[in-house]
């Protein structure tokens, strides 16, 4: 600990403390411009100059970057210092006369008007005063180094490299945050460059998935977080009081021994981008069903209002059914849920934009469930238009300025036998529900077959929709096929009940017709392992033999026939028995 005296007041501080920091402890205010508590002191503005006694003379040093020494005596408000600071401000005001932070400091020092003006005079209120806090925070705290200085002397500027849009910039807003003159403005574009007025996703590297997320804790996007790229920042760690942010967290592999598995891995939404005729991803205001769900949600980006990209409510909304479903080019099957949610959207659009027209372009209106047909009638009464026909294409109307932004939906109205072209502001696509892209891998992992449409195969479409051909393995929900919430719940309950029934029995009944491997003859070739359609044969590495799990074995005998050593006995249909039958029947 060392002792420092500032303006007559003495205090004890740690070694290495700067005069400015010591003054803060004593509540003595020293003016600064380029200093910022998060950054290393730079000493650029020179405003924080103080006088340090050195023998009989007084040395003028900058308080921000001068470390205190034991016995140091400092003065912060001598006449000499005030004159020095006033002169500095005169120079600054000469160049930047209208910048508020400078004018405020000038007032403090009793400076009315600078005596000179600069050839580089910049009259703007938000002129850059070259405090360089932005450059330093980007380098020291964030670690992105996206901006820097250019040129020298009076021509020094703060720019991105070569004045181009910087790829290193992660749009964290730190530079805008520390800028004293609002010269750097944060436009609220997220790090993926999407405009702020319609963010359907997160907008910072650490984000809350949605306002209603369960659990309601933030996640860190590894791709975007600058800490993983440069090792710097970790501002989130610094501000989190309970210390809950841990960048070292990773995936944990947990091994759990179970007897039964229920696969309920859900679905993916068909990506409509390849269907160029609908313009998804190419034209504005064309959305997929889940995008609209986000928009309609009260915690969404528009607080539940139905808005176009320009912030205006739509005059007409088109809802196109069967995008990717009932389509020979994509999926033959019907996705089951879309007609009902299309009607839901129609209802909500009418409710929130009473003046808007809603058009449904459908093939069939499938309102199959309890209360569904009644809801359909209600939506029709609310004035939703329904047009039976496929939409050929969605194009931009571009004849006049007033048409700008309008989309034309070209369709066939089969009930009147005509082609129609309907101008709308917004198009909603009812994308197909399709199996997840990794369904094949997951299927192979568990030994789950898939039906031709790619969803997991149930044991029987009518009589056993939750079980699979492998005992103890069940499927439920959209992983087995498109279905809505009541059906998913029913299926999940059924599967859970079946699993509980097996568990509560306490024993597993084994069929006498099954296979068993005679260990002494098994050579560990494992040919049988891959052949079993029920994954019922395990390989025991320690003994280098295979073993049949009698609870899973169905007794088909495929492995018995395939074993090159003849090591597998098929009880009930053994080789001995069949040979005996052959001998008997061919004896006469």
């Amino acid at each position: 600990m060392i002792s420092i005296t500032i303006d007559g007041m003495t205090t004890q501080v740690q070694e290495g403390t700067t005069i400015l920091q010591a003054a803060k402890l004593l509540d003595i205010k020293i003016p600064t411009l380029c200093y910022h508590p998060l950054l290393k002191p730079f000493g650029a503005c020179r405003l924080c100059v103080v006088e340090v006694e050195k023998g009989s003379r007084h040395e003028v040093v900058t308080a921000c970057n001068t470390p205190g020494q034991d016995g140091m005596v400092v003065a912060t408000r001598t006449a000499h210092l005030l004159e020095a600071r006033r002169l500095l401000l005169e120079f600054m005001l000469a160049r930047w006369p209208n910048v508020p932070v400078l004018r405020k400091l000038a007032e403090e020092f009793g400076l009315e008007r600078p005596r000179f003006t600069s050839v580089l005079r910049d009259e703007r209120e938000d002129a850059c005063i070259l405090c360089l806090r932005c450059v330093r925070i980007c380098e020291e705290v964030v670690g992105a180094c996206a901006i820097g200085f250019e040129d020298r002397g009076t021509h020094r500027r703060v720019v991105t490299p070569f004045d181009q849009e910087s790829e290193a910039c992660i749009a964290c807003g730190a530079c805008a945050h520390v800028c004293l003159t609002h010269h750097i403005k944060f436009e609220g574009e997220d790090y993926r460059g999407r405009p702020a007025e319609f963010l359907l996703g997160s907008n910072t590297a650490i984000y809350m998935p949605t306002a209603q997320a369960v659990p309601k804790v933030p996640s860190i996007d590894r791709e975007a977080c600058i800490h993983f790229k440069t090792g710097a920042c970790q501002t989130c760690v610094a501000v989190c009081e309970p210390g809950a942010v841990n960048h070292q967290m990773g995936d944990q592999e947990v091994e759990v021994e179970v007897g039964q598995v229920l696969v309920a891995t859900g679905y993916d939404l068909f990506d409509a981008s390849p269907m160029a005729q609908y313009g998804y991803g190419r034209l504005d205001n064309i959305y997929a069903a889940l995008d609209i769900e986000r928009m309609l949600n009260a915690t969404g980006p528009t607080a539940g209002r139905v808005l176009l990209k320009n912030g205006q409510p739509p005059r007409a909304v088109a809802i196109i059914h069967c995008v990717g479903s009932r389509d020979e080019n994509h999926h033959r099957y019907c996705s089951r849920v879309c007609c009902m949610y299309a009607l839901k959207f129609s209802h909500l659009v009418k409710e929130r934009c009473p003046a808007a027209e809603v058009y449904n372009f459908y093939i069939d209106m499938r309102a199959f469930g309890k209360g569904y047909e009644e809801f359909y009638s209600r939506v029709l009464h609310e004035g939703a238009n329904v047009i039976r026909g496929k939409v050929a294409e969605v194009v931009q109307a571009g004849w006049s300025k007033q048409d700008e932004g309008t989309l034309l939906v070209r369709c066939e109205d089969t009930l009147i036998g005509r082609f129609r072209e309907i101008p709308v502001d917004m198009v909603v696509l009812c994308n197909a529900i399709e199996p997840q892209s990794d369904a094949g891998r997951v299927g192979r992992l568990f030994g789950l077959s898939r039906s031709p449409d790619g969803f997991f195969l149930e044991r029987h479409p009518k009589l056993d929709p939750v079980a699979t051909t492998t005992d103890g393995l069940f499927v439920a929900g959209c992983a087995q096929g498109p279905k809505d919430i009541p059906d998913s719940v029913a299926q999940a309950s059924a599967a859970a009940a079946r699993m509980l029934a097996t568990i509560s029995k306490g024993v597993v009944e084994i069929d006498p017709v099954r296979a068993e491997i005679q260990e002494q003859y098994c050579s560990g070739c494992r040919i049988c392992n891959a052949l079993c359609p029920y994954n019922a044969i395990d390989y025991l590495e320690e003994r280098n033999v295979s073993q049949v799990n009698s609870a899973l074995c169905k007794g088909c005998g495929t492995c018995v026939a395939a074993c090159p050593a003849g090591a597998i006995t098929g009880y009930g249909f053994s080789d001995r028995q069949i040979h005996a039958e052959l001998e008997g029947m061919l004896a006469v």
Partner: protein
Amino acid sequence: MEQNQFEPRIVGFLCNWCAYTGADLAGVSRMKSAPNLRIIRVMCSGRVDPSFVLRAFQLGADGVLIAGCHPGDCHYQEGNFKALRRVLMLKRILRDFGVDERRLRLEWISASEGEKFARLSLEFTEEIRTLGPLTLETAVEPGLPVEVLA
């Protein structure tokens, strides 16, 4: 029909769930089927070991039929595909042994195809009758006992 006409002896391996049930349906429906076909029931056509087929020929069978579920309908998922693979291999081996490959036949019969089974048994019997009795040039006597392990 001659009195001393050659009566083929045919062994049929029928899978329990489809082919055997189909044959049972033919019987229950009183359809006329060939008595020459002697049936061995297995749970799945995939149970049929190639050695069964060879043993059958060795013991004097003039023809062997393997019948299982239609592809995609196997009660045990894919057993019938394995039967198919084995039959393809067997046909080549039989050819090497000098046995006419038409003496081995693979058919898909579902549980409702009783009529198909009846017709098939008659057709196959006639085909084997045309081919005549099987004469194997054996270095090993056909009656030798086979040591079976499992």
